[in-house]
């Protein structure tokens, strides 16, 4: 099974730009299914990016983040070839992790 996380990390000089897209339903808990029953809330609560043993970005999310969430940020201090570790956990205790090489 392919990872739920897609990351692109590109170093340009001292600044690395990171874009990530995660496959996740991000159900709000307010939407009904075809049978008229509420689909329980199911959403990523925390998404973390680590590089060279240090957190470079931590996202705390509620249900108002769109389905298949996307985020973009930049940080300093990394170079091409460094590993960027990305991990998330959701409100049901599920999680996923991936490591991307900075290009």
């Amino acid at each position, binding site marked *: 099974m392919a990872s739920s996380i897609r990351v692109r990390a590109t170093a340009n000089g001292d*600044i690395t730009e990171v874009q990530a897209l995660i496959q996740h*339903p*991000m*159900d*709000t*808990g*307010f*939407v*009904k*299914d*075809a049978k*008229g029953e509420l689909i329980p*809330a199911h959403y990523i*609560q*925390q998404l973390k990016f680590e590089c060279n043993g*240090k*957190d*470079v*970005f*931590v*996202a*705390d*999310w*509620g*249900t*108002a*983040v*769109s*389905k298949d*969430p*996307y*985020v*973009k*940020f*930049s*940080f*300093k*201090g990394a170079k091409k070839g460094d590993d960027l570790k990305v991990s998330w*956990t*959701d*409100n*049901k*205790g599920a*999680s996923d992790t991936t490591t991307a090489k900075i290009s």
Partner: protein
Amino acid sequence: MTTLTGPSATRRLILQGAASVALLGLGNLPFGAAPARAAANDKYPEEAFKQKSEADAIKALYGKTAEPSDKVKLDAPEIAENGGVVPISVATTLDKVTSISFFVAENPSALAASYRIPEGTIPAVANRLKMAKTTNVVAIVEADGKLYSATKEVKVTVGGCGG
């Protein structure tokens, strides 16, 4: 998919074949039970995400109030093409930024996302948020222990609660 709840006969007439996205009146719904926590040792701001109003959410998250600042640049569309996916970003020229948070004023709970910005990370974030209806989006930047905000109204005609 989703169920269509309660559009009036008049609205149905006016729809003229427009899509049947559920426009749930979310503002009126009672807040659901707290979800189970995923991990116990992180600092996920559970309480702040539970607050309905923007003011309460800001208080729960930061314990103080924000002042508007033109150094906080909030970028959001005039009219969201779909309330389910509204691209919103913020950047700032302020120094010593430690966090950036996004609030959608009239969502069922106002706090949408909060980002911790460690030293060395550029204080700029782009993300995509759900909006239940036309309302203000507020970005708050925490810099040197103080809070600065920028606000922009985004019009939503297809609500973002259909999924």
